[in-house]
């Protein structure tokens, strides 16, 4: 009897411990959001008036057109490419199927500065045209259309990836059903396959919108003012943290709307899953003309979204090989160590959440987890402000308290990495959570029970069953977060300790001075890191 008591008590105690930890984590996520929302509830009239008169309308219309254009572009590009590679057959389809994901490795701000560098008045294209004696009036690259095109090329893979998965599991089968009911394959696509894949496509589109709203680097390169650059300028040019947080609070409202749409799309994805693909499906063989068109279309997109930017980057990087010096290794070291720290913290927090998710399936725990993993939708500048304000407040209080005891030094927390790490962890917790949670779901109750019926319990079960199964998920989570942190720009830029420049910060600084060549070397490094998850994803898909 006493042993029985011990076991069940221990389980209860530890699961309460897990839940407590989960509560703490979700509070850490909620803190920046609450701080920002608080500033919405306590507007400062002067700042508001200034914002309204000079900024707000421009920012809103800029954001509106950017979101609209990027959504439409990614939708058309993503869905059409997904349909072609998932359901049709044309020369090169197998290669395009994964190669079209390559632009995911290139941060949008990299594509952006390459595009601007290429098409600028002093850039290679316009210069050589002038050399040939052609005086053409070139459309200004730093325009609304320019930003939209770059963002479409950078973000279409989100829609492409998710729509391709939807089409390849259900597209052909649904189409066959439609054909057996008398539809042609074209009308079947619009009447059946597309509506069926809608929740997936909407989900992918919402990710695109989140990325668009969160983007800081691309719009900076194009001098296209949106909320993220507005927040940055308010903080670092006007030195008004409250103006920054007022702007952040407007942005966060927009983001919440997107989150709600995305969550609904996700819920519907679950209910309409058709199940596994039944073996190899026969593809639609495109007729010759169509096939040539499909191949050229996919090649063109791959060329402008990945190959040309990469080639140009490498050419520039080669021109500035003298930059390959100790400063470069400083940037690299800062990037790598920041990514390592953030990914260790994220993975630890993700394991706690995933375990809490397993032991508690009640509503409270599910809400906590939902909150904790919302950070992926929150733009970096918002999180930077939201994390900085409370840290500065605590710092201030600490300093007052310590002065009372005769402390003479400076600030304790500001200037350390703590703000940056909090904001990064909040932003990337979801990235780490889903692979770990997915793996933990594989350990069903009957797996635990069969281990017990074979005499294995407690720590031994953790060591022999749970940890080995989790290992793969932890590795994936670690890698994904690591790479995302390396690519991340605004949080690192806005909250880094003085002098702690990373590769992304270096790219920002060089591009804001128009020195594209000198931004190329750190950019190439980031892209190489960015390729790792794509290779992982690809080898996983092939297994």
């Amino acid at each position, binding site marked *: 009897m006493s*042993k*029985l008591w011990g076991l069940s008590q221990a389980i209860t105690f530890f699961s309460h411990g897990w839940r407590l930890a989960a509560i703490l984590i979700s509070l850490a996520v909620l803190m920046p959001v609450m701080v920002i929302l608080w500033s919405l509830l306590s507007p400062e009239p002067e700042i508001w008036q200034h914002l309204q008169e000079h900024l707000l309308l421009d920012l809103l219309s800029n954001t509106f057109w950017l979101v609209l254009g990027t959504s439409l572009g990614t939708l058309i590009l993503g869905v059409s490419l997904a349909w072609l590679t998932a359901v049709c057959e044309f020369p090169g389809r197998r290669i395009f199927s994964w190669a079209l994901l390559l632009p995911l490795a290139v941060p949008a701000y990299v594509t952006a500065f390459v595009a601007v560098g290429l098409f600028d008045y002093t850039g290679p294209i316009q210069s050589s045209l002038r050399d040939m004696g052609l005086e053409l009036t070139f459309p200004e690259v730093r325009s609304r259309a320019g930003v939209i095109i770059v963002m479409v090329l950078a973000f279409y893979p989100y829609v492409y990836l998710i729509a391709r998965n939807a089409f390849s599991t259900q597209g052909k089968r649904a189409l066959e059903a439609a054909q057996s009911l008398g539809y042609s394959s074209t009308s079947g696509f619009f009447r059946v396959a597309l509506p069926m894949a809608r929740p997936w496509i909407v989900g992918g589109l919402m990710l695109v919108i989140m990325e668009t709203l969160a983007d800081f680097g691309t719009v900076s390169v194009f001098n296209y003012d949106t909320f993220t650059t507005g927040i940055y300028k308010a903080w670092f040019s006007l030195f008004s943290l409250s103006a920054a947080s007022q702007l952040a609070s407007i942005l966060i409202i927009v983001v919440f709307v997107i989150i709600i749409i995305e969550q609904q799309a996700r819920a519907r994805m679950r209910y309409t899953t058709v199940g596994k693909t039944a073996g190899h499906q026969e593809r639609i063989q495109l007729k010759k003309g169509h096939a040539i068109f499909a191949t050229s279309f996919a090649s063109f997109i791959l060329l402008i979204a990945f190959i040309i930017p990469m080639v140009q980057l490498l050419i520039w990087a080669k021109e500035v090989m003298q930059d390959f010096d100790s400063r470069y290794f400083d940037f690299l070291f800062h990037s790598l160590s920041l990514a390592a720290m953030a990914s260790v913290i994220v993975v630890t927090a993700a394991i706690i959440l995933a375990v809490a998710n397993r032991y508690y399936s009640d509503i409270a725990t599910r809400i906590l987890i939902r909150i904790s993993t919302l950070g992926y939708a929150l733009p970096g500048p918002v999180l930077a402000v939201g994390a900085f304000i409370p840290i500065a407040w605590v710092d201030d209080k600490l300093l007052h308290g310590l002065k009372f005891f005769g402390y003479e030094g400076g600030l304790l927390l500001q200037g350390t990495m703590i703000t940056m790490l909090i904001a990064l962890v909040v932003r990337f917790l979801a990235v780490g959570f889903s692979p770990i949670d997915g793996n933990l779901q*594989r350990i069903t109750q009957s797996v635990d*029970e069969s281990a017990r*019926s*074979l*005499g294995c*319990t407690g720590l031994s079960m953790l060591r022999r069953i749970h940890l080995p199964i989790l290992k793969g998920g932890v590795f994936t989570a670690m890698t994904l977060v690591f790479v995302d942190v390396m690519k991340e720009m605004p949080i690192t830029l806005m909250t880094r300790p003085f002098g702690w420049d990373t590769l992304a910060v270096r790219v920002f600084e060089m591009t804001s001075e128009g020195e594209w060549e000198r931004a190329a070397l750190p950019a190439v490094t980031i892209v190489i890191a960015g390729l790792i998850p794509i290779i992982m994803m690809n080898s996983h898909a092939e297994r």
Partner: protein
Amino acid sequence: MPNDNVLLLLNSISQRYGNNTVVHDVSFSLERGDIGCLLGPSGCGKTTALRCIAGFEHVQSGSITLANKIIASESVHIPAERRHIGMVFQDYALFPHLTAEDNIAFGIQHLPKNQRKKRVDEMLELVHLREFANVYPHELSGGQQQRISLVRALAPRPKLLLLDEPFSNLDVALRERLCGDVRDILKQEQATAILVTHDQNEAFMIADHIGVMNEGVIQQWDGSYNLYHRPKNRFIASFIGEGVFLPGVVINDHRVAIELGVIEGEFESPSPVGTKVDVLLRPDDIIHDDDSPLKASICAKAFRGAQILYTLQLPSGAEMLSLVPSHHDHDIGEPIGIRLASDHIIAFQSDH
């Protein structure tokens, strides 16, 4: 006096969840080397009973004795891991990160290495999967996973083996073949086992004794022949096998009159003379005989290979089933001659 041959004894087990009594006063015993089965529709409490034996549920009242030792009661709960009871799960629950070989070796880590290896090989041999020793579960077919999970549970030589719907995820042809295999394997290992299933054919193929459960109660604990031919109540009669009830009247203690005539035979549960009863007629109780003056018209037929199952209609409109050798191929609507062939009477008092 404890009977040394009795391995498992369930004494009046009951389980409630809130107001819902899932298992009610269940008692049975199983002798060493026997294969028992809890058979019943889903939600009848059979899996809960099994999980009580395994130790995954705490027994609320009653007791469970394994090899003359109480393992579960209101006040005793030996944890599952120390009961030496093996379990095969419906979803097999193989450990996804371990090879087939390592899965089997999981429960026998206490053995020295060479003995462990020997036992694992023996087990792989038993299910003819030696060449799959180093394969991971996701690379195995459903039937292979099922067999690995069976020998994983058998490897530590458990005192008792529990199988929870082990065939329900397999297709029908494989299910039948594996049922036979599993019985052979269990007998070869001299294992004592309890199977839980909703499929009577599985139960008949594997088990020596079957407990048919409904609404948390064991309705009858018996061998397959008796369940089919001597059902104790209406539920058993309609759950096991096929058949129809025809109204009849008791003439004396070995005769009942029904529309087809008088059935003579041993009366399973005699009722007073003149009682209105419902008489169970199995498809094999009605024999097709062209010479018989008794006619019934065919209203449906189902071809079953060697036999055809005819649904016949009597002049009164009552329907019954008859299993007829398949070369007697008649058309729907055709009247055919039939004869009663029953040496015992199964009748329950009529409700109306």
